[in-house]
């Protein structure tokens, strides 16, 4: 990531563009929304005085007060339930889970209530709640605090599931989520919070359900999201030394998923690899590869589709094992080379 990041930053500085970290961009979006709309409130454990487990809300309690930046008790089910109820009755709550893993405790509210109420009430009401989901491995936080469970929610009609990979998208997606009348879950990668990048001033919406070609190429297509995008981009850069031109697509939205951008790329390259941090089996890669195989892009496939996902095991605490359990630049590079060189 380092080479590409420093190049990107150098470019940004050259053009005199403003840079923010991923966490700052999220905070800016929340503050802008709260200033513009009094119904926007923040809820979550330790988001007030403490500033949030990853210091994302930071000083917002000082700016907006405890009525709008509410610390909730250590009960994810209770907190999420209040957020869903508030959303149903006219507010726009942004509920932060300290770790996305803790959403397990609130599944009833997310899956059975938030996702379904619009349908069960015949469209008479909606649940405009936003769940912020700090996720992913790499922090040494072990099995119960390092998971990537975004695909679980991709299976639930009624939810929207987003994964910003840059500070710019982190802000744009949060604003888009607030503008959406239905529940939206944003999976923020813990390792990206400090990543800096250009963030436009003012309000803008990153379109929900639209993937983005971050790098064009002709030999293979790599679909990745969140931190995997950066690993894929770094691998793609290294692949140029082998004469391999990789197209890298930032998935951005898991539900709805952008079929057409992926299919168009597969029609061009004939080779598809999906990289994601969730457990490989039954994951985002399964959905994407099946979607391609079912589509007209099938006729353009010139090699089996490859999925790179996490090991079929809980995320280990041991740092070496933790690193080895999820796709890294090296693993992406090796797999991409084999795919491009027709070895699979």
């Amino acid at each position, binding site marked *: 990531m380092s080479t590409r990041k420093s190049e990107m930053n150098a470019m940004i500085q050259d053009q005199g563009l403003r840079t923010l970290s991923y966490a700052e961009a999220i905070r800016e979006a929340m503050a802008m929304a709260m200033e513009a709309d009094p119904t926007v409130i923040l809820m979550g454990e330790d988001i007030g005085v403490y500033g949030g487990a990853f210091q994302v809300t930071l000083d917002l309690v000082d700016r907006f007060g405890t009525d709008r930046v509410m610390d909730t008790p250590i009960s994810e089910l209770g907190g999420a339930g209040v957020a869903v109820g508030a959303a149903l009755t006219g507010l726009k709550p942004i509920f932060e889970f300290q770790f996305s893993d803790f959403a397990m405790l609130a599944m009833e509210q997310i899956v059975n209530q938030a996702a379904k109420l619009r349908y069960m009430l015949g469209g008479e009401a909606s649940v405009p709640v936003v769940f912020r989901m700090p996720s992913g491995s790499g922090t040494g936080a072990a099995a119960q605090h390092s998971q990537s469970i975004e695909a679980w929610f991709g299976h639930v009609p009624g939810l929207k599931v987003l994964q910003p990979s840059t500070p710019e998208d982190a802000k744009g997606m949060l604003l888009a989520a607030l503008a959406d009348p239905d529940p939206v879950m944003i999976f923020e990668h813990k390792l990206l919070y400090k990543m800096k990048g250009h963030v436009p001033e003012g309000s803008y919406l990153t379109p929900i359900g639209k993937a983005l070609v971050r790098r064009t190429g002709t030999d293979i297509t790599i679909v990745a999201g969140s931190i995997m995008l950066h690993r894929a981009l770094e691998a793609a850069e290294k692949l140029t030394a082998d004469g391999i031109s990789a197209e890298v697509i930032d998935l951005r939205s898991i539900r709805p998923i952008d079929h057409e951008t992926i299919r168009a790329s597969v029609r061009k390259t*004939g080779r598809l690899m999906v990289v994601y941090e969730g457990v490989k089996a039954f994951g985002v890669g399964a959905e994407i590869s099946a979607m391609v195989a079912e589509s007209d892009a*099938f*006729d*353009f*496939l*010139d*090699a089996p589709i490859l999925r790179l996902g996490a090991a079929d095991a809980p995320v280990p605490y041991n740092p070496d094992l933790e690193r080895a359990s999820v796709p890294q630049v090296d693993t992406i590079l090796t797999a991409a080379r084999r795919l491009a060189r*027709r*070895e*699979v």
Partner: protein
Amino acid sequence: MPVEVILPKVDMDMTHGTVAVWHVAPGDAVTKGTPLFDIETDKAAMEVEAPASGRLHAVTARPGDKVAVGTVVALIYAEGEVVVELATVIAAAPASPDPRDKPAAVPLAALAPVQFAAPATQETNGLLRATPAARAAARQAGVMLADVDGTGPQGRIQREDVAAYADRQSAPAHMPDSPAVWSAQPGPLHVSHRKGSGVPLVLLHGFTADSQSWAPLEKALGSDRRLIRIDLPGHGRSPRRKLRSFADLARMMVEAFDEATKAYDEVHVLGHSLGGALALAVADIRARNVAGLSLIAPAGLGPEIDATALTGIIRATRAESLAPWLRCLTARPEGISDEYSRAAMKLRRDPALRTFQAEMAEVLFPDGVQAFDLRPALSRLQCQTTLIWGRSDHILPWRQALNVSGDFALHLLRDAGHVPQIECPDRVARIVLRGMVAASTG
């Protein structure tokens, strides 16, 4: 048990072949499906692929050796398998009728128990390993996947393999037609030309066959005659094109005929079975260009056709199920050897080809009936016309020829079935040549 490499029978009338060159040295590793050696027959050169992966041993035929069809010319041992001399293997084969046979001259039949232990590994049950992109490219280019060498893992055919093959095809010379003799002409259907003298003879093959099936007759006709062969759509090297009716097919054929014969004022047309019906249609539509017509068991002269045999040929996915139906084509079933069936099945390995031909059969022969009638066309013909029919034709009854009025000659061949040009090529050649002389003097 090692897999034996045999000299395959690639032409109906082939009895011997000469090993031209080995691509793999004894003891070296071979991969199933990769070129193992080249053979030369009287008419063509052809690459023979390794029937299995492993190591090559017991090579008995050296370059230049002329060997009988079915002879075991080498063995392929699986990695780690104990290598035994060929003689030992043969001695161990219980069915060997003559222990004095030298290894290099052992007919395949002597190794029957060994032979039939292996077929499943030789063709992956008739399935081809190819990527979706390769299949789409082959459909588009009208290339038969079975002809393409896969360079991917496990011999998988990839898009670039099809492209490379198509490039080679569009070059003037290609295998297995002798490159010095045949040249391909681009156009809506695959056309190949052979240089020679006199009025060109245009050859239109029958349903499920291809231009290669004319080989025995070509040999009997002599090498100096100018020949033009056209592959039917979805047959041989012609692309698969959607057909709604016989009229559609005839239009395509006339288009290809015009393109193929534009350099000549007049031609003689020879068609077999469905190709015979098409020859009739061409002569009817382009009467001015057709000096004479020879029709071998032409379709379109009555409703009856042995649809069961037709369906059987189309549906067969392995040599064992194809052979019984191929034997319906000839007067004497023993004319079709197992090796011939295997070679024929190899050309039909692509499921897309079989599907296309099944759809074509449904259009041309719905409910097992010849749905098109060319009797009026035959009655109208002004050119010199000869019908040749085997008296033991099980596919199309020769009596249909009696139901048509018209000034044509009818030759009924004893001991011939539906494919007299293969069963007795010399007799058919004599009749065709006489017809051509009559046409030019008449």
